[in-house]
């Protein structure tokens, strides 16, 4: 009965293995606990399939009593399992159960089932544990190790992915089979499955970082970047921009005449970063200014955004001149004399590009704030 039942199982199991892999990948987030022990069962199953022919003698008790009561238990466990997981996995488990059944389970298995069923709150676990116990029994061939096994299975109830690893480790230790050793290696090679605590922690950490990045994305403008690295760049730029705004705004309260290059953040010494070197390109500037003037008619905010996108910004003339004299670089000649701290109308503002050497990434940054146009609100 066993031999012919095995032949159709092996290719079927392979396909089911692949399906299981996909399921694992998809449902990894949702039900990690349910699936992964099952897949480790698949490994055990394959190994059992390959190793069974040479070792029929290790299961002497199996031939003696194939109790019918166990089949009932197993079918009950299978039914529970069915409710929990998808069809393919259930089918795999069914086959597994059948295989174990065909090996023949003795009375201790029966008892174990009862013990597990009563004690575990999670209905998925008994089925898991039943199959795991079955595997364990198969490997050790010692139905007498009742207490040991029940302890280990209680472990399994409480635990997670680590338990499958410990189980495979324990199985390898007790049986000392080459088959068990191969199964341990195979468990490690499984894709999409964390088999040691380090990768679990890594994954948790990565998930947390992804959460934070998503919330940061909503906060920072220009957050349409999908790449994490460019997202980080945006965040860095934005923080620098805001910090500079604060700095400049605190200056603006004093009437716009600044004596300090407002580029460097406060933490670092001012002299470390060479201040505003003016990179304005005269030919491009005219077209930009026209565009900005056009935008300013409609909406100040969009004009600012446009400039920001180009790496430029608006500021009143007084501040621009003050900065320029402070840094003693060439600059755009002001169109008008006075802009004051109040609302600048478009022709009286000068546009200035400022290059900051503070960025390690090497991008040009415009970090001067346009002060206090009422329309900016």
């Amino acid at each position, binding site marked *: 009965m066993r031999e012919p039942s095995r032949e159709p199982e092996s290719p079927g199991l392979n396909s089911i293995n692949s399906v299981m892999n996909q399921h694992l990948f998809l449902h990894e987030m949702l039900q990690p606990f349910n699936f992964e022990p099952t897949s480790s069962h698949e490994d055990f199953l394959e190994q059992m399939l390959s190793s069974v022919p040479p070792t029929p003698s290790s299961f002497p008790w199996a031939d003696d009593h194939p109790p019918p009561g166990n089949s009932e238990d197993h079918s009950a466990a299978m039914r529970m399992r069915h409710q929990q997981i998808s069809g393919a996995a259930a089918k795999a488990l069914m086959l597994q159960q059948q295989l174990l059944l065909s090996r023949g389970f003795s009375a201790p298995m029966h008892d174990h089932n009862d013990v597990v069923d009563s004690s575990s709150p999670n209905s998925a676990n008994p089925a898991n544990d039943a199959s795991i116990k079955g595997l364990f029994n198969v490997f050790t061939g010692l139905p007498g190790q009742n207490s040991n096994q029940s302890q280990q299975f209680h472990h399994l109830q409480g635990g997670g992915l680590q338990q499958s690893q410990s189980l495979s480790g324990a199985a390898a230790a007790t049986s000392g089979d080459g088959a068990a050793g191969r199964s341990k290696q195979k468990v490690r090679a499984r894709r999409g499955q964390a088999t040691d605590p380090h990768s679990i922690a890594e994954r948790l950490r990565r998930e947390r970082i992804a959460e934070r990045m998503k919330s940061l994305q909503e906060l920072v403008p220009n957050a349409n970047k999908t790449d*994490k690295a460019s997202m980080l760049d945006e965040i860095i730029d934005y923080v620098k921009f805001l910090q500079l705004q*604060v700095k400049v705004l605190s200056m603006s309260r*004093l009437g716009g005449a600044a004596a300090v290059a407002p580029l460097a953040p406060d933490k670092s010494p001012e002299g470390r970063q060479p201040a505003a070197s003016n990179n304005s390109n005269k030919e491009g500037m005219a077209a930009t200014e026209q565009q900005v003037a056009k935008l300013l008619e409609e909406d100040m905010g969009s004009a600012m955004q446009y400039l920001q996108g180009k790496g430029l910004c608006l500021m009143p003339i007084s501040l621009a001149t003050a900065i320029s004299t402070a840094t003693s670089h060439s600059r755009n000649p002001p169109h008008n004399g006075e802009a004051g701290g109040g609302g600048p109308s478009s022709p009286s503002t000068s546009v200035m590009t400022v290059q900051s050497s503070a960025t390690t990434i090497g991008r040009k940054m415009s970090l001067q704030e346009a002060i206090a146009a009422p329309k900016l609100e």
Partner: protein
Amino acid sequence: MKARSSLKQEFLEKWRKGLQIGRNDSTILERKDAIKLSADVAIAATRNAATRWRRALLCDVVSKNPTNKHVVEQILGHKLKNTAATTRLTTACRRRILRRGQNYRRRKRNKRSRALRKLVPGGEEMDGVLLLQETLDYIVSLRAQVDVMRRLAAIT
């Protein structure tokens, strides 16, 4: 929305309190520094002043110029008795972070995280997850600060 407007109001109140301390600074630079100082301390004192960057900011402010301490305490409303605790905390964090330092240096976005750490106060002693978290909070507070300062500058 409610949370943000109360944050701004809180910031405004504390900023005003800090500005009222009254300094007789002659130069524009000094006045600007005083204004910025009050503003920064005020924004760091909002909410519960418990997050890392807030504490680091206050510690920086005090350590840079010990005369600022009374300003900080006035705005905070209580004594800065936890500066020693904060330094102990930061050294412990630093040690813990340095122990994991190999993993950190191996990562590809190393330069960027370094740049971010420099920006956020106290960022040197934060690990990756905490850094992003603190950055988020810091950005929110900075925005509130900038908004309030802008409106105030627009009025006058």
